[in-house]
């Protein structure tokens, strides 16, 4: 048994050395296929991350009928903080609102001269925990707010949130369709390359069968070879991705106008990197298995 395993591994390695061109072609094809799929995955993950970073701006503003007396402010803040979805609560008095408005007007702030200090309503500004920065989360907060304090009006960017949700849904949908298509194309190209490499070696398969090699004896070294090429293809695609990520993407992302200043591009996690290499192995193994079925006849 051990002798057999040793033979199969040696045979697979020797085969690769005896057919360097075919072996390189198979490894490169798998590397390109895997890198394409992984690049696409990275793009989708990072766009989603970028979209999530925009949601930091999501907040619920509750405008009040009348200003809260100073001694009740902290009590109300504590009450609002008990809403599970809420992370931060800030009270904005009519004076503070007017000051803010004045600052925003800048040079035109003189327009506000002579206007009552209570022109703008008092409000509570509620920041949300990251997990609840979506339409459902906001709606929950709004429902609880309505039950707990007297509110004149609520603002939470309803239209923006709806558009944002539609955008994230579309991103996921397009990601799945394109990702599925890319994966299928990668499988197709890899299995055809392996088929071609086996076609070039069909004499070898025929002679093996002729001297009395069993199906297992013929197939195992080819399968091992396919798996080994897949692992090498996976590692190569990982190196390629890392280089492109480090020297091109990370450098150019900061000049992208939609990127927030503190935005960090995500690379594949360790688990995803392992998945890529294992995926390469599976690709090589399945590609060889499918092609061998066609070429090995006893």
């Amino acid at each position, binding site marked *: 048994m051990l002798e057999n395993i040793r033979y199969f591994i040696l045979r697979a390695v020797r085969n690769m050395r005896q057919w360097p061109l075919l072996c390189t072609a198979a490894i490169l094809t798998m590397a390109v296929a895997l890198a394409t799929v992984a690049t696409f995955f990275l793009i989708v993950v990072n766009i989603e991350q970028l979209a999530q970073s925009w949601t930091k701006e999501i907040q619920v503003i509750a405008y009040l009928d009348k200003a809260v007396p100073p001694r009740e402010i902290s009590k109300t803040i504590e009450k609002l903080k008990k809403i599970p979805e809420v992370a931060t609560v800030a009270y904005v008095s009519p004076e503070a609102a007017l000051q803010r408005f004045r600052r925003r007007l800048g040079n035109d702030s003189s327009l506000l001269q002579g206007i009552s200090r209570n022109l703008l309503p008092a409000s509570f500004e509620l920041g949300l925990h990251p997990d609840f920065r979506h339409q459902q989360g906001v709606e929950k907060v709004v429902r609880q707010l309505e039950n707990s304090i007297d509110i004149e009006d609520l603002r939470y960017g309803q239209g923006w949130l709806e558009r944002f949700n539609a955008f994230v849904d579309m991103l996921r949908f397009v990601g799945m369709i394109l990702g599925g298509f890319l994966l299928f194309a990668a499988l197709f190209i890899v299995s055809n390359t392996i088929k071609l490499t086996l076609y070039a070696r069909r004499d070898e398969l025929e002679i093996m069968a002729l*001297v009395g090699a069993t*199906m297992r004896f013929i197939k195992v070294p080819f399968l091992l070879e396919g798996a080994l090429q897949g692992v090498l293809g996976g590692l190569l695609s990982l190196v390629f991705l890392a280089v492109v990520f480090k020297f091109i993407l990370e450098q150019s992302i900061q000049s992208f106008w939609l990127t927030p200043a503190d935005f960090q591009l995500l690379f594949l996690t360790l688990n995803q990197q392992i998945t890529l290499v294992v995926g390469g192995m599976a690709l090589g193994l399945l590609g060889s298995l499918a092609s061998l079925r066609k070429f090995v006849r006893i």
Partner: protein
Amino acid sequence: MIQLFNVTKSYGGDSAAVKDLSLQIPKGDFIYVTGASGAGKTTFLRMLYAAEKPTRGQILINGQNITRFRSHQIPHLRRKIGVVFQDFKLLQSRTVYENVAFALEAQGKKRYEVSKKVYQALKEVGLEHRLQRKPLELSGGEQQRIAIARALVVDPLILLADEPSGNLDQDVTHEIMELFKNANARGTTVLLATHDHSLHQRFPRRVITLDKGKLVSDQQAHLS
């Protein structure tokens, strides 16, 4: 002992490659299979090592009906049969040693046994000094001797040779015939398909002649 009973092989269409062939070949026999191109010689040999299945009839080798073999039994049959081709069918990417060793490795033989037997087989065909060469670096005659070494290294019960001298000159053919005769002298049954009449005139043995797939003559050798 090889026995054929009313064996027919057709590939569809009107004419059959082999028609109603019945034959007995005792163990240790040496037989020439002759006939013009397309007479059915190759199909006949291919059926003996189970590369083709007869359309009708039965083939028995040492009492086993190989026409009823399932695919997993075929490798075990082939380990008892050595086959030599006109185009040698060597693995060009492997060395002479690896080409011959492969037949033993396929049978799961141990490494020390493989190297010992390969060396002996190559010595027998006079190529033990070419171990690490690739087939393409050798002459046609040398390549055919390697193919014969590969066929004989497993000590086959039967040796099938399909036009083994087709691409070779007279001197090399003579050397190769000596190798077949030596194998036969050790008890291996030899079937040699050829359309070269001079071969059985120089090395007379039993001759069966096929014509359009039919057995038209079966002559015992008149050894003088």
